[in-house]
């Protein structure tokens, strides 16, 4: 667990440094999901950093809210998918690390482009159905923003997953309660999200996405619930900007970059490191 927490701290350092370097990108949601990505890529998923697009006989992950690419890229690099130094190319010309994740530049670890919101759950369902057709018992994980659930395609997907028997799918919602224009409760209230998933036929769990122990426990519970006829949803409570006090809980940090002074202050709050890129 100590290692996981150190890794999460390093991923947070990578996020703020990447976004600061190009003065663009999305630090808020990335920081909030750092613990989740750490748990997935360093503990929960059986996966192969020697990347194969078809993901046969391994667990695979889809990021639907592609704007939190910094946390995805850092987790992939730190778990061995591509050189850590490549994080320095984020959002620069000729980089494989595009602003939003893509397969187009052949970055290992990415299986579909995302960025235009609301599409990832459908893709994850398709990949889950393919695993079933291939008699591959491994799992499909996906992550979605809470604001992203405003997109109607999600609800097509949420309704279809139980109907299509995608009980090898674990979809997590990053429920930080913030979106670009303000709190989700004001922009488009999600209401009783747990009840919504349950009534659509999903096994539904809640977890504290910024408590590593809880993340590991609940992801384990979610895995145990697969294969029983229902897809599994995890409503993950996180704090946008977690780990950097002046970013925490502020929707303004959805998509802006820290200044030089703010970067210094942020890194001082994240002392645990495995070595910066």
């Amino acid at each position, binding site marked *: 667990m100590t290692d996981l927490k150190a890794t999460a701290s390093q991923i947070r350092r990578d996020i703020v440094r990447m976004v600061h370097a190009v003065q663009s990108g999305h630090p808020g949601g990335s920081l909030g999901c750092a613990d989740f990505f750490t748990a997935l890529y360093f503990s929960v998923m059986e996966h192969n950093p020697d990347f194969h697009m078809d993901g046969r006989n391994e667990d695979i992950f889809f990021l639907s809210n592609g704007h939190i690419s910094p946390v995805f890229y850092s987790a992939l690099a730190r778990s061995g998918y591509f050189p850590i130094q490549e994080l320095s190319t984020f959002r620069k010309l000729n980089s494989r690390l595009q602003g939003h994740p*893509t*397969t*187009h530049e052949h970055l290992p670890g990415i299986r579909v*482009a995302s960025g235009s919101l609301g599409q990832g*759950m459908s893709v994850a369902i398709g990949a889950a159905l393919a695993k079933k057709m291939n008699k591959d018992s491994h799992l499909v994980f996906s992550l979605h923003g809470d604001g992203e659930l405003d997109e109607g395609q999600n609800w097509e997907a949420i309704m279809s997953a139980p*109907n299509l028997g995608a009980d090898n799918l674990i979809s997590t919602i990053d429920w930080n309660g913030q979106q670009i224009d303000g709190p989700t409760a004001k922009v488009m209230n999600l209401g009783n999200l747990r009840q919504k998933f349950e009534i659509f036929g999903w096994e539904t769990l809640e977890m504290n996405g910024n408590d590593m122990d809880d993340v590991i426990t609940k992801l384990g519970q979610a895995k145990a619930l697969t294969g029983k006829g229902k897809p599994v949803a995890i409503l993950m409570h996180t704090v946008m900007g977690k780990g950097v006090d002046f970013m925490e809980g502020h929707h303004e940090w959805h998509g802006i970059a820290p200044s030089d002074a703010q970067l210094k202050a942020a890194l001082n709050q994240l002392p645990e490191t495995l070595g910066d890129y």
Partner: protein
Amino acid sequence: MLKDIVVLNEKETRGGFGEGILEAGRKNPNVVALTADLLGSMKLQAFIKEFPERFVQVGIAEANMIGIAAGLTIGGKIPYTTTFANFSTGRVYDQIRQSVAYSGKNVKICASHAGLTLGEDGATHQILEDIGLMKMLPGMTVIVPCDFNQTKAATIAISEYEGPVYLRFGRPKWPNFTPENQPFEIGKAQFLSEGKDISIFACGHMVWKAIEAGRILEEKGVSVEVVNIHTIKPLDVEGILKSIQKTGCAVTAEEHNIIGGLGDSVAQVAARHFPIPIEYVGTNDTFGESGKPEDLLVKYGLDTPNILAAAEKALIRKKH
């Protein structure tokens, strides 16, 4: 000569799709069919009967269908999504753009009821912009076969091609004149006659209309080259150039808006390599309406006499 072309029967091109996907499914165990509540219209019954475990019913949720198809490719499947052309393209443009085209996924987007010949359902369903929408997507292959037999052949051929494909066909019974079990080469124009005076480039249902117009021209002593451009993209630039360098003028005919369709593609080849007079037959920046297919083609200027008139105009322009 065009008069030697024999109509074997009249069949729906979508029926050719139904037979084609069954055969593709027999040849390749990775072929999977998806539909958005239109399995009957899309002629999927035989496929579903033989391969029930390789069929995904998504309900009336086309965006979800495109995404699921993209996901299926990751596990090595070859998904064919099926619904009407309007719901296959315009309704799900961004899903196709991001999850399929930009992601380079091997999804076959199969679309029936394209164009005016959908008939009585009217303009909400008669998409006339889909060829343009799809051909603009980087990496997308766009195929518009002309009859039942060719649609069947194309449906099988796309299973053997790696990459996203838009396959467009239609609803009504239509003359079926190309050979049964023909080879289908993606991107290769089909020369239905050899001529030296004028080229007529057509796709889909309009190929038969082009043959009818060409026969009348032949009777008048005009030497007509009718070319079936069943693949709008990648376009057979070499084939088109070879024809227009010989004939020096052309007509294009399509069941689609002349803005953004086959005609634009042909004109771009001419403009860049060998400028010639070209006349367009297609809808002109308009929506359709309810009516019988044949009546609609007449009203919107997509009938045999329109091709004939366009050809005469192109021939006159060539002389000046």
